[in-house]
């Protein structure tokens, strides 16, 4: 029999209904695990002190009404850039150390309304500036598969929380790779919804034009359930899409992928990519063919162009978004920003300055439009494109030192889809050096159902979604 921390959302609900355990049991179980492993892994920055009271109320509700809410009694790990009333929210930055939010972000409101329980807030790159969780002002999170390795980032704490099974499911946010890349490095599943599918209201902004909140979980199914809950038009976020939210869970359990057309992007099999990583992606393509999908080689712009576009746009928006931390109102001076954040503010300020705006920002927007058009063209023929999430497995601790472009190089295969605001699922597709490798399945805007269907079918017909035995790995 599975242990409580190993259960998926559906399995937790089955357990509640069969009275195998209560919500209080589950929460206590996670608390014990957190107490045991968190000091070593540095995943949680703050814990919800009210969690047992909430669990008791949920047990009462289940006893009275059964399970009528989709996330009832599901323990969440939440990235520390989601504002949560009652739990400090720092974005892993000293400038917001001890910041107590006045309101819940819309996504938090939605999961709470769906019955979720928040165990605590997870570590991240400071202000999400990075792909390693090493730029956190509160120390790096360690990779549960190998504590000498980085978990990826910026949602490194949330991905590690799932890999270490310190929560049933987690919330992360992606600006360009920040869900899919840590999920891949930690060997778990992550879903980046379309930009504007889930509200950004109450999430500490990184790059406003690409930030997308989404789930990290043990399975595509769990990610689909959470995405269905958090999606939808929010009157408080003008960039959310008014289109109705599809029932993503109806795309699960496809027996095959006949009539699905998938493009495997030639340019994403980078020349600098390790052969063994490349082979895992090609094997995954073969697996998808076996499931009935048509998989053909397609060509897109060299993804390295996206690095330039993304770097300029993101740094520009960052320099602006962080202006509100002006040293007057949040208790700490601007020099409390970490080095990486300062670098980004400087670069963004420069690219927006008179005389440089046209050369950098405008040019970047023009290339962005070209990237969007290119994907549009591809999705006329294909339902999804696939490629590796990262060029390789998790890097070692310290790898980001003196590497200001570390994140951009690691996220080279994810930035095009983020710039275009697409939806994408990252699923484990094998191991190299005993470290997990992720496959990205990317679909057009608002085509979450398509990416979910392919990723779910792939996951159910492979055995790559594994979890480390922490007592052996750390």
């Amino acid at each position, binding site marked *: 029999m599975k242990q409580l921390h190993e259960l998926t959302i559906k399995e937790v609900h089955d357990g509640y209904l069969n009275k195998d355990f209560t919500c209080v049991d589950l929460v206590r179980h996670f608390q014990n695990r957190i107490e045991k492993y968190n000091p070593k892994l540095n995943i949680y920055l703050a814990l919800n002190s009210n969690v047992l009271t909430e669990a008791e109320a949920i047990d009462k509700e289940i006893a009275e009404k059964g399970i009528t809410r989709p996330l009832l009694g599901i323990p969440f790990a939440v990235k520390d850039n989601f504002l949560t009333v009652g739990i400090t929210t720092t974005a892993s930055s000293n400038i917001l150390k001890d910041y107590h939010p*006045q309101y819940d972000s819309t996504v938090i409101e939605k999961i709470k309304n769906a019955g979720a329980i928040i165990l605590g807030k997870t570590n991240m790159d400071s202000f999400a500036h990075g792909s390693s969780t090493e730029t956190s002002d509160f120390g790096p999170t360690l990779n549960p598969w190998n504590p000498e390795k980085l978990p990826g980032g910026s949602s490194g704490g949330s991905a590690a929380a799932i890999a270490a099974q310190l929560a049933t499911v987690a919330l992360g946010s992606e600006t360009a790779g920040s869900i899919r890349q840590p999920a891949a490095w930690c060997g778990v599943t992550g879903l980046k919804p379309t930009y504007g599918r889930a509200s950004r209201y109450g999430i500490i902004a990184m790059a*406003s034009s690409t930030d997308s909140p989404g789930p990290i979980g043990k399975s595509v199914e769990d990610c689909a359930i959470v995405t269905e809950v958090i999606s939808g038009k929010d009157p*408080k*976020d*003008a960039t959310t899409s008014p289109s109705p939210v599809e029932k993503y869970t109806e795309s699960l359990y496809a027996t095959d992928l006949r009539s699905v057309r998938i493009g495997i992007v030639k340019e994403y099999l980078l020349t600098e990519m390790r052969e063994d990583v490349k082979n895992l992606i090609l094997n995954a393509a073969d697996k998808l063919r076996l499931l009935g999908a048509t998989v053909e080689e397609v060509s897109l712009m060299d993804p390295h162009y996206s690095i330039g576009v993304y770097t300029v746009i993101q740094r520009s928006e960052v320099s*602006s978004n962080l202006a509100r931390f*002006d040293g007057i109102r949040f208790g700490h001076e601007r020099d409390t920003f970490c080095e990486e954040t300062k670098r980004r503010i400087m670069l963004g*300020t420069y690219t927006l300055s008179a005389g440089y705006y046209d050369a950098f920002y405008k040019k970047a927007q023009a290339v962005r439009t070209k990237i969007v058009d290119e994907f549009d063209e591809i999705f006329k023929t294909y339902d999804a494109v696939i490629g590796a999430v990262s060029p390789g497995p998790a890097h070692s601790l310290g790898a980001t030192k003196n590497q200001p472009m570390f994140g951009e190089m690691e996220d080279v295969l994810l930035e095009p889809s983020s710039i275009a605001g697409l939806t994408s699922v990252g699923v484990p597709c094998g191991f190299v050096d005993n470290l997990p490798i992720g496959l990205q399945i990317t679909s057009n805007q608002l085509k979450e159902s398509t990416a979910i269907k392919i990723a779910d079918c792939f996951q159910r017909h492979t055995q790559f979604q594994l979890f480390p035995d922490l007592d052996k790995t750390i």
Partner: protein
Amino acid sequence: MKATPLIGLEVHVELETKSKMFCGCPADHFGKDPNTQTCPVCLGLPGALPVPNEKAIESCLKIGLALNCHINSLSKFDRKQYFYPDLAKGYQISQYDQPFCSDGFVMLDSGKRIGIERVHMEEDTGKLQHVELEGEKVSLVDFNRSGVPLVEIVSRPDLSSSAEAKEYLKKIHEIVRAIDVSSADMEKGQMRLEPTVNVCIENESGTHYTPLSEIKNINSFNFATQAIDFEIARQTDEFNKTGTEKTAINKTTRGYDAVKKITFLQRTKEEAKDYRYFPEPDIPPFILENELIEKLKGELPKLPDQEIAILIDLGVGSNDAKVIVKAHKNAMETIKTVATANEKIDIKKLASLIVNGKLVYANDKDLLLKQYQELTKVGNTNTEELKAVVEKIIADNPDVVSEYKKGKTNVAGFFVGQAMKETKGQADPQTLNKIVLDILK
């Protein structure tokens, strides 16, 4: 030497919408306790996002339409970035290169057209209060005004005197009030003025332009007039002394001291801020459909100048038309209805009765008609009947007649008065007057 001032005006108008520009807080901030009308959005708290107020945008478009502007079908917001304690987010959401409205004009009474470069939408900032607290000088921030919708109307430098500037400002003031988007109360800071001034000097050595100066935040028409006049004189004088001409980098920003009645230097262009404008990523761009623009056009009332023109067309004297339109809302419609419904009404007379106060104006056509008829009651004009009455009075008053003959012609009024009395006021005074004079001749 010929000196022609070139004056442009930036006018900020606070809109009187129910809620603020990007959040649900009340927009009416005047006299409220500090920081009682705030929320995460207008306080610029982490994670908060702006959602544009459609009503405010419609008001901005209406201002644009009323100022004969072109409405840009594609528009967007931008971030204007600078640090100041009253600016919660570290940037102001404004419009940079794609304002809602552009290329309009205001027609002065002389027939001169003053070009409007653009009309755009932005948000107001908070307010600093410099006070002494427990013996310490401190600055406090009140964010009640933060995020209140603000429309900026930018003219071209087509005004060539402070008098023209004042007329232009008064017209803008009348228009925003007439279309009901703002009371534009200057004392409450609902309308703020920033003239930009320089002078074109033509002399034997050619045509020269003096350096531009922008005069910040003036809150009365008279101060604007004084500041402009001071600035024209100062610049002309300065040019005569130094010969310094306008360059791309010597624009200055000046303040106006209303007590000393002088402008003073605030900063030079070298110190000017680089606002690092870029498109506001939190608000998608706007596509303004023709349908909406037509709908808004339909909702616009007649503007003061249009009402005046209509009244003049109907026969009202031009001064009377101006006085009436300025003093009474909707007067044009009411007067027009009264005058066109009743052939016997002389609209010119009706208007002058209103202007000279004999007729008390009310937005009620029946009341107007009744008063008018009272005041212009046409009496008995039967010449024969009246002649008999007058002849009798003249016969009864030989001494008055002899006074008249001696040259005291104003005693004629005596006979008219007596005749009026005799006829119990039923006689038509003009007819009577004529008869009296005829007989006495």
